[in-house]
């Protein structure tokens, strides 16, 4: 007899018998409560799966009408983020650099660029177990910046302000870990370099060299305590 059967056998026997002699009969109301509980479990499970499905499904008639309710159920605890490399992997690489400004005797002095992305690349190379700090921190902060700011560098929402602050903190932390000199403000520069298309079969001529896009962000003041 397996453990599983041992657990279930006495129960089945008890539920089947109408006049249990040694064992107490489950009270009537308990049976009713159990029936309701079982039904609730099943219904909640099915509804949950349906809502999660609708949440990840492409926009449709149902999500147009009930999108808010679906999101309210799924977020935040059942967040669904399955878009790694989808619909397309990024076809460009990004190099994010930072420079600093200091003012001495009324003269502003600007440093040369410090490559923030290079810190990640160096940490990832030949590392079988790269850290989340190198894979996700700068990458996701920049994606979030693009999502909240678009092409204009003015934060129009509370979330945009938060992301800007986050990006600034990352830059400041990495910079101070490598350079000791104090500074008053920082500026970020993002160079987006498209990845060359694969050489076409039977065509020995290499694909045309893609042109990089340079985006210069505004200067952000850095308070000394942060």
């Amino acid at each position, binding site marked *: 007899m397996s453990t599983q059967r041992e657990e279930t056998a006495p129960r089945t026997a008890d539920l089947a018998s109408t006049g249990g002699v040694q064992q*107490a009969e489950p009270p009537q109301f308990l049976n009713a409560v159990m029936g309701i509980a079982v039904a609730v479990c099943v219904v909640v499970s099915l509804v949950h799966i349906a809502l999660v499905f609708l949440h990840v499904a492409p926009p449709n008639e149902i999500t147009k009408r009930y999108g808010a309710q679906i999101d309210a159920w799924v977020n935040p605890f059942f967040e669904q983020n399955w878009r790694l490399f989808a619909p397309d992997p990024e076809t460009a690489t990004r190099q994010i650099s930072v420079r600093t400004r200091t003012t001495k005797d009324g003269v502003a002095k600007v440093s040369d660029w410090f490559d923030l992305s290079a810190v990640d690349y160096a940490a990832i190379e030949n590392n079988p177990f790269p850290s989340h700090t190198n894979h996700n921190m700068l990458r996701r902060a920049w994606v979030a910046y693009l999502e909240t700011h678009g092409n204009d560098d003015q934060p129009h929402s509370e979330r945009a302000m938060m992301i800007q602050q986050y990006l600034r903190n990352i830059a400041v932390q990495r910079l101070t870990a490598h350079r000791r000199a104090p500074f008053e403000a920082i500026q970020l520069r993002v160079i987006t370099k498209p990845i060359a298309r694969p050489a076409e079969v039977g065509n020995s001529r290499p694909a045309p060299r893609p042109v990089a896009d340079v985006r210069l962000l505004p200067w952000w003041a850095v308070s000394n305590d942060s």
Partner: protein
Amino acid sequence: MPGLEPTGAHTTEANKRRAFDRLSALGTALTEQPVSLYAAAALRIGYGLFYLVFLLTEFSHRDEIWGPGSPWTPSLANQLFEQTGWASILTLSDNRVYFEACYVGAILTSALFMFGWRTRVTSILFAIVVGSFHARAVYMTDGGDNLVILMAIYLVFTACGRRWSLDARRNRLRARPDAASGWVLARQTLTTVLHNCAMFIIAAQICILYGAAGFYKVHGETWGNGTALHYVLNQELFRPWPTLSSFVDSLPLLVAVVCYMTVLLQVAFPFVLFSRIKYPVLAMMLGMHLGIAVLMGLPLFSAAMIIADAVFLPDRFYRFVADTWQQSRTANWLVRRRSQIRWHKVPRQLMRPPRESVETPATQPSDDSAIAGK
């Protein structure tokens, strides 16, 4: 034709009864037979170990990711919680000592969850830990972390401590009288229903995951023309072994095949689960994730996915693995001890490997009858 009418009525009656029988059988199974207890245990051990490894490998980065010194400051995190409704035990205080205590607590909770000690309570603590760490650094997470938080929540409702756990060991050692009162029965039924529903949700969630990942890719131009992998291989963030990545990238046919296989596998996944094709598909999924782990340097992401796939393996597979492991362990023990054992003194019964040792209760009835016989 009046002669046919009774037969027709008869068959509808029989059909109705058959449908009703099936429905009530389903109801009995739902309330009385916890499904896939071994798979649930595998998920518990898998995700407990996963989080333990995660916390230990990120130990030197802990402050940067979750601590008071993170660029995503505690006040930013709290501001986000107000907007999203999340919460985290980590932002209750900015104190450094409090954070370190939470970290140690998280490590202990993950270990206890893995070992299945007081599993129901530990599983709730584990879900709180995973949720807190996930929410504290939500801009640091990827799909793997997303899956782990979902699984941590779903596992709370399963009976994942019934097998391969300290709880199971304790129950085995302690002979407990079966006092089946109405309340005890009700509790058992409720536990079973919750477990079955949660396992069903876990399976459905994984299908939705793969289905969504596959369908999103179908829209992608680069997956369609079979060059997506080329771009992934050239992402500096995802090429820990540049020579290996360049080598794979230099084989355009392989790149195209892998692209199509990835999309096909993911889209097909929910539809193959009800047939025997699921085993080769699961094996290919395993291969795909091992490839991602090594080639793209995403071992934790891959591990989270591989553990999730384990839910689709049947209990007889896990029992086979356990038996094999037990036997090989016994064999190894014998090999190691061979020089020390005085063979003429070993009773004959002990020399046979204990086949039934995994399912200890299986031997109990015969023991009892042997005692009764005396």
